[in-house]
């Protein structure tokens, strides 16, 4: 194995492959940063090009694009409050406030370092623990997925303290809207309100571009501010952030990366869910909970470390079992198959050089990403120096084309505009766009797995057995209860403490 790993490193540094890594990263970061161009699309578009390449070079390039795109999504999340890929939803929660406070450079660098760190941890799991992790992925059935979604939704309670009811309502509205289209169980048309075009359902990405990005443009344009935020390039910003992270965010980085890897191995749960769960966990374990949502660097770190860690995670079941853990992993598997390489545990024996070179190259990719990223950040942050009058309309143009290209549907563009208005006016009556996005993302997965669990319960003859006896389900239920109850208990505890303090005074 050591020999294979060394060969892998050697392969990554062959000039042509190294060049492909850099090109893939830059291309990936740009694709990721543009809202609507997702990691899946970026990788899929490049697959035909790999047909003409040696498979190792091809895979190395696809891995670089994948990593770059997942990281790149954070750039637009931080700079214009628009997750470039769905994976960066949770990055907006604190990244955007940091930008508004004039600390865009801090957020951008934190996201870069965290992404690279998460990417390396995910890859190490892939390299050394692929077999047990793959078995774990298989233990995750429909009821486990259902509880995972409920756990994800429970973060809403913590997300909008002081406004929990409206937060839950926003999540409920999001989930309800996500049921438009064909239902997962019988394939029946639902809630199309007479418009056949709605049968394709509400696609997550246009809805999110609308909620975050178009609504933000309306705010910006109406704000009379000349610029989005103050931004002056500072020398040594990267070093400063690196030092801060080393000093105070080690536990956060590690925890988020591990969460990301675990979520990554599950087919059907990707970077967005990993980011949201890690964000919530980071908040739970942090001493200064109140800072979250107001520009806490820890929030950015948690979300970004987790979503890049999903990359290694999602490749684990793909390589070992032929079951891709994410849409991008599915595309990469398609590329493997087109080269005549069958995934499965045998791949490590029959195609050892290819498998290990690909995995090891991901470590190289993540290290190179830091150097590429530090330079790109200097350029991308300049967006903030462009007056809002220009940025605003440019974001709208990007949002329109981004919503369209997801599946070449003009309906999606209208959905984007609609959600922009929902986000803007909803925000004014206290609805929370983050909670609504969460509902839209998790709603379909929750329902799909709920109805499947009910089918299974029918065969087992017991609802209780299916929902409440599997160990992973129980763990998730306990976590959900903790997550819902801690904010309540904390509030009580604090009130009591204050009362005591008042008594003394």
């Amino acid at each position, binding site marked *: 194995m050591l020999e294979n790993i060394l060969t892998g490193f050697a392969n990554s540094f062959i000039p042509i492959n190294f060049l492909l890594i850099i090109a893939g990263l830059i291309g990936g970061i740009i694709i990721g940063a543009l809202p609507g161009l997702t990691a899946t699309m970026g990788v899929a578009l490049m697959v035909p090009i790999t047909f003409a390449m040696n498979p190792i070079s091809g895979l190395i390039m696809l891995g670089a694009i994948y990593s770059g795109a997942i990281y790149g999504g954070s750039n637009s999340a931080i700079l214009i409050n628009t997750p470039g890929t769905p994976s960066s939803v949770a990055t907006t929660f604190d990244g955007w406030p940091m930008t508004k406070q004039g600390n865009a450079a801090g957020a951008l660098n934190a996201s870069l370092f965290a992404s690279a760190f998460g990417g390396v941890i995910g890859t190490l799991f892939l390299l050394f623990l692929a077999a047990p992790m793959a078995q774990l992925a298989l233990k995750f059935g429909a009821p486990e997925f259902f509880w995972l979604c409920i756990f994800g939704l429970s973060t809403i309670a913590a997300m909008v303290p002081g406004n929990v009811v409206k937060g839950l309502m926003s999540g409920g509205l999001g989930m309800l809207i996500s049921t438009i289209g064909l239902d997962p169980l019988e394939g029946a048309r639902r809630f199309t309100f007479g418009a056949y075009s709605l049968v394709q359902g509400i696609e997550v990405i246009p809805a999110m571009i609308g909620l975050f990005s178009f609504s933000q443009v309306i705010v910006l344009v109406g704000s009379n501010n000349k610029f989005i935020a103050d931004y002056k390039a500072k020398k040594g910003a990267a070093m400063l952030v690196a030092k801060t992270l080393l000093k105070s965010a080690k536990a956060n980085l590690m925890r988020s990366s591990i969460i990301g890897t675990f979520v990554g191995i599950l087919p059907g749960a990707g970077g967005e869910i990993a980011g949201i769960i890690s964000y919530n966990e980071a908040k739970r374990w942090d001493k200064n909970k109140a800072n979250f949502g107001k520009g806490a660097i820890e929030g950015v770190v948690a979300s970004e470390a987790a979503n890049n860690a999903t990359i290694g995670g999602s490749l684990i079941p793909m390589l070992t079992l032929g079951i891709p853990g994410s849409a991008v992993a599915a595309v990469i598997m398609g590329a493997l198959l087109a080269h005549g390489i069958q995934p499965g545990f045998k791949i490590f024996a029959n195609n050892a050089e290819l498998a290990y070179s690909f995995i090891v190259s991901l470590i190289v990719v993540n290290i190179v990403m830091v150097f590429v990223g530090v330079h790109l950040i200097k350029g991308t942050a300049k967006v903030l120096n462009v007056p809002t009058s220009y940025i605003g309309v440019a974001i*709208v143009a990007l949002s329109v084309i981004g919503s369209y290209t997801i599946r070449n549907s003009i309906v999606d563009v209208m959905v984007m505009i609609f959600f922009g208005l929902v986000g803007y006016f909803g925000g004014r009556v206290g609805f929370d766009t983050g909670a609504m996005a969460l509902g839209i993302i998790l709603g379909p997965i929750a329902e799909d797995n709920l109805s499947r669990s009910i089918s299974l319960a029918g065969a087992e003859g017991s609802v209780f057995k299916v929902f409440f006896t599997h160990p992973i389900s129980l763990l998730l239920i306990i976590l959900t209860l903790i997550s819902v109850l801690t904010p309540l208990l904390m509030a009580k505890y604090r009130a009591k403490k204050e009362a005591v303090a008042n008594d003394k005074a």
Partner: protein
Amino acid sequence: MTKRKSDILAGLVSILVAVAFMVQGFKLSDRVNAMPLVLEIFLIVTGIYMLIRGFISKGAEKGEEGEADINWVRAMVIVLATFVYVAGVIYIGFYVSTFVYLLLGSWYLNEKGLTLSALMLSLIFSTAISGVLYLIFTVLLLVPTPAGLFF
């Protein structure tokens, strides 16, 4: 907006949406309509709670953030312009509409007023952005863009 007003509005919206979905769901089978129905009931109950909270509260409390000075005219002009833009994308084509939208939009919004020099700046800006979009989407990625009469 006061907290009271925003509570009442939020409650109303949530109830309206839930009822609209409920009416649409009448003809669906029970299992297909199960989760939507649960959500609808949840939204109606919380909506009623919001209405009650809105009506009994004093109403003086200041509500959500961002109340300050919103320039409604600018905001609404851009929203309307975007509607026209999307219509243009459908019937005229993406690149032409984008160019026009960027040109007029940025010119209208710029702070120096509708001067000729600002128009020139907007012209450069919209040409550059449309060009970059064309380069990325059509030349490099070969991704189809909506094409109407033109491109």
